[in-house]
């Protein structure tokens, strides 16, 4: 077990090196630099003197070729320093810290909500498999699964914000947020978060319900289920106790794989709702060619992806005693 983990971690570190190296090379070869894009946005008439430009480039280490820049970045990361954002003039770690809350505010509740709803729904669908009610529910869920989130987000905005005016269109707080009471502030953020949260939830809800149902369908045909029924175990107990417990293994894998989505947010959703989270930070830094921020975020996302895969594999061995890694 230990040697397996060590091997996986070593391979993971190697993969991280390759990923960051490639991404660094890619973003450095995009046309424009953080200096030019920031200047063009400030004032196009105010041109910068050539020597000042060169001096700025030296300060940020952009005068060196990209592979040298990568080594510098890597050395800083090894010391625990993600660098400073060039256009925002702030440490990358602090930028991420500022945005992480907004994203977690959406992803954590929607992840929990999706599981809390999909498990009973999936079990219910298995128990009533083939009936009209189950068919209708499953078809509706399948259609939800195929509905792209950005289309759903725009439809929700049209219906709930523009037509019915129940919810605010976008943003995270109202303009008069500063003058609200504590309860009023919480309520205001909740109202703003409702639509993006629905968009984050419905897709995984549909997917997980289908996932649970298809796993249950396989388990329910096993001999031990028939045995349990034959010895007179009630239908609810058969479904929950005998069948569902045996579908936990693939579920655990699924949870491990959703880990990166927890922090990455979703670029398009956060853009539609003007939500100040990780997704919009990522999009903005790509547009501003803010190399340190892009690299910091990429490192975090790929690290989480690899960690999620490793955790899924390890949990697999924990839940299923037949699986060993020795």
């Amino acid at each position: 077990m230990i040697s397996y983990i060590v091997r996986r971690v070593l391979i993971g570190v190697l993969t991280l090196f390759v990923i960051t190296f490639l991404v660094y090379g890619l973003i450095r070869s995009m046309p424009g630099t953080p200096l030019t894009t920031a200047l063009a946005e400030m004032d196009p008439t105010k041109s910068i003197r050539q020597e000042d430009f060169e001096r700025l480039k030296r300060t940020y280490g952009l005068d060196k070729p990209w592979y040298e820049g990568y080594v510098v970045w890597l050395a800083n990361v090894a010391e625990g320093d993600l660098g400073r954002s060039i256009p925002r003039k702030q440490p990358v770690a602090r930028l991420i810290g500022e945005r992480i809350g907004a994203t977690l505010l959406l992803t954590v509740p929607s992840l929990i909500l999706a599981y809390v709803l999909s498990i009973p729904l999936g079990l219910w669908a298995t128990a009533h498999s083939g009936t009209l009610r189950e068919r209708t529910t499953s078809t509706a869920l399948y259609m939800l699964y195929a509905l792209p989130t950005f289309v759903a987000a725009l439809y929700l905005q049209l219906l709930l914000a523009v037509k019915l005016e129940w919810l605010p269109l976008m943003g995270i707080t109202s303009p008069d947020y500063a003058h609200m009471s504590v309860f009023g502030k919480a309520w205001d953020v909740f109202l703003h978060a409702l639509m993006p949260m629905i968009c984050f939830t419905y897709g995984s809800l549909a997917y997980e319900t289908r996932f649970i149902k298809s796993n249950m369908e396989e388990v329910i045909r096993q001999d031990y289920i028939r045995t349990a029924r034959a010895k007179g175990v009630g239908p609810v107990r058969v479904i929950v106790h005998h069948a569902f417990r045996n579908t936990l293994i693939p579920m655990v894998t699924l949870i491990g794989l959703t880990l990166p989505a927890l922090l990455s947010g979703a670029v398009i959703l956060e853009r539609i709702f003007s939500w100040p989270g990780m997704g919009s930070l990522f999009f903005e830094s790509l547009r501003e060619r803010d190399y340190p921020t892009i690299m910091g975020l990429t490192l975090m996302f790929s690290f989480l992806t690899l960690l999620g895969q490793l955790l899924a594999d390890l949990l697999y061995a924990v839940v299923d005693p037949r699986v060993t890694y020795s």
Partner: protein
Amino acid sequence: MSSVPVEQPAVTAALETPSRGFWSEAWRQFRRRKLSLAALAFVIGMGVSALFAPAIAGTKPLVTRYKGELYFPAMAYYNRSWENAIFRTQDKFRGRYPQNLKQKDPESWAIWPLVYQDPQRRLYRDEWEGIPPNPTGAKGKPYLYYLWLKGWDSLFGTNYVEEEFGELLKDGPLPFNLFGATDRGVDVFAQMVHGAQTAMLVGFVSMGIAAAIGITTGAAAGYFGGWIDILLSRVIEVVMCIPALVLILALLAIVERPSIWHIMVVIGITGWTGIARLTRGEFLKLKQMEYVTAAKALGAGRARIMFRHILRNALAPILVPIAFGIASAILVESALSFLGFGDPTRPSWGKLLDQGRDSIQEMWWLILFPGLAIFFTVLAYNLIGEGLQEATDPRMRQAGH
């Protein structure tokens, strides 16, 4: 004893009829799923209308006889340089055919597209006698909406048409913008029909690229094994771990002005990992089979074994992620256009949604119709993928699905 003569002919008959081939059996299974079949019909219909988009909506005649010669100006919608030089430079039509044809050659005739609307520009006043110009601003309400309200009014005695369309009807006949018009007066229906062309093209070309890369990589990794497998598996893992948006946007930014072809290539070279992993697994499994050993013993070369013997048997499961991949390629293209990274010269569903987002307060039709188009297309490809999965997986067939 009496049962023997009854049974015997049945047995011999069963032996004499040739057994069904894999694909005809798969097709038989696929046909049994009515939803997948409907999805296939939808996709074929969509493909045909995308192919003949210039015949459905456009402002250039399909066929015209002008100064004694036959021309096909609508071909310009496929490729701008295919518009005959006589209309572009010599007689300077500037894209306005109806008047110019009549003025410069009264003898001329032309066959027009079904709907006289252009996906790139608005209709101007008096472009064609009797056809009103497209309104600009937020006034280009859908004609479909007008019909809907009219039906509602006549059924329930309300007066919604007057409320919504009163001012527009005062100016004369209502412009025929089936799905409405953008704030610059470009018809949405024409953009959507031509946008279907973009979507279908992106779906097939980028998935073709992804399938070629994925199958080759997966086949090599699975068949050769050893260090080639280790290396290629690492490559697959690396590509999977890089955030897709970074990869796509960075690759697109390298090209100065990305066209639809660049976008397709980029979607293709970022979307092959799933196919590669599946192909690798199938090859690992199938290379152990007896017929592969037999082919080897007969002296077949590596390439022949890989692509003629193994791939043909692995193709069915590989088709499933390809069908799902077409859906996701279409989705990625509309998402890119929505974020403003699309091809500026081509109509696209995502671009319409982007315009709709900017004017969400009044122009709901810029969101409703393209959104439905994306939704139904993605749904159809998912249903086809699902149908393929169930039709080609013998385990599921035995389970009675």
